[in-house]
């Protein structure tokens, strides 16, 4: 990335006018995008999502004041790298939930964020933990709209009966992540 943008973004960030900073990250599955507001990590785009789409989503849902500025994402990139290398089981990143729908959807995602590394729960269980045991389909939709995948581990929610179920990044990616965590 260019020195010009880096200098501009640093000045803007100091001044408080850089609403969203993003960076790219190499993972075993391809290049991912991570984005953060001043509050915390707001968006992770998995390698199968085009970067431009993720940026449009951010501009639309958070703010159009978006620049590439990896310095704000040092912690997120480091923790994700450690996770993919098998050296980290818990993320300690502040999260900004504003790209998830408030209410039931967000409760499902918050409950999912507490499922530990290497464990899985079912969609019904996720719905129950969010306060509506019978809303397993809605829980599936909530997880499908997860703006912060991997860090909010929606891949740890699977079908009852053993099938791993859908995943925004594709079923192979879900299998890869569960395999990495020794959950399969």
């Amino acid at each position, binding site marked *: 990335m260019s020195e*010009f*943008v880096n*200098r*501009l973004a640093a*000045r*803007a960030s100091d*001044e408080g*006018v*850089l609403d969203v900073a*993003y960076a790219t990250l190499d993972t075993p599955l391809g290049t991912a995008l991570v984005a953060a507001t001043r509050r915390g990590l707001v968006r992770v785009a998995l390698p199968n999502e085009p970067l*431009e789409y993720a*940026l*449009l989503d*951010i*501009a*639309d849902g958070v*703010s*159009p*004041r*978006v*620049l*590439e500025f990896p310095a704000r994402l040092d912690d997120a990139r480091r923790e994700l790298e450690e996770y993919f290398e098998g050296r980290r089981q818990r993320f300690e990143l502040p999260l900004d939930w504003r790209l998830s729908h408030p209410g039931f959807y967000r409760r499902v995602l918050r409950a999912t964020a507490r499922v530990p590394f290497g464990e899985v729960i079912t969609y019904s269980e996720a719905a129950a933990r969010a306060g509506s045991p019978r809303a397993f389909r809605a829980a599936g939709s909530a997880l499908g709209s997860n703006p912060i995948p991997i860090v909010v581990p929606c891949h740890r929610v699977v079908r009852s009966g053993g099938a791993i179920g859908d995943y925004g990044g594709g079923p192979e990616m879900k299998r890869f992540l569960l395999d990495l965590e020794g959950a399969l």
Partner: protein
Amino acid sequence: MAQALPPFQGFLDEHLDPVRAFLRGMLGPTDAEDCLQDTFLAALRAYPRAEPRNLHAWIFTIARRKAIDHHRSRSRRATPVADPGELIDRGAVAGEARDGALGMSPRHSAIWAAVADLPPGQRAAVVLRFAVDLRYREVGEALGTSEDAARRNVHEALKKLRASAEELKEMAR
């Protein structure tokens, strides 16, 4: 439906080179870089209030204002760079003489010195028309004038530049 603003990064990627060309024409290559930073920082501050359909004219309006500010603060400094030729030389020394339309071969440098000598309105118009390749309507939008006024400004500027070119030829004889 209201058109959404694109992510600022995309807007920046699209406009960085033309705005740089404009500021080089207005200020010379050395000062252009600082002014380019100030221009896009000001744009980022105001971005949420920008009109999505008119971003092109909008960024050049900001750039022109910043170039005028820059010019003023430069004239106030202890060692003003009043001589446009010196501007060009400094750019050449900084090693920026290589690239493209505003590269400073000796012949070019004389022409750009003449451009730097134009009154600000005419200079902005002629740079936007020929270094940035805007249409007259867009030049007018960027400078807050009518298309006709933009055309007249460019016309006046070209007349002066032709006269300078004639003088240069005389001097070379």
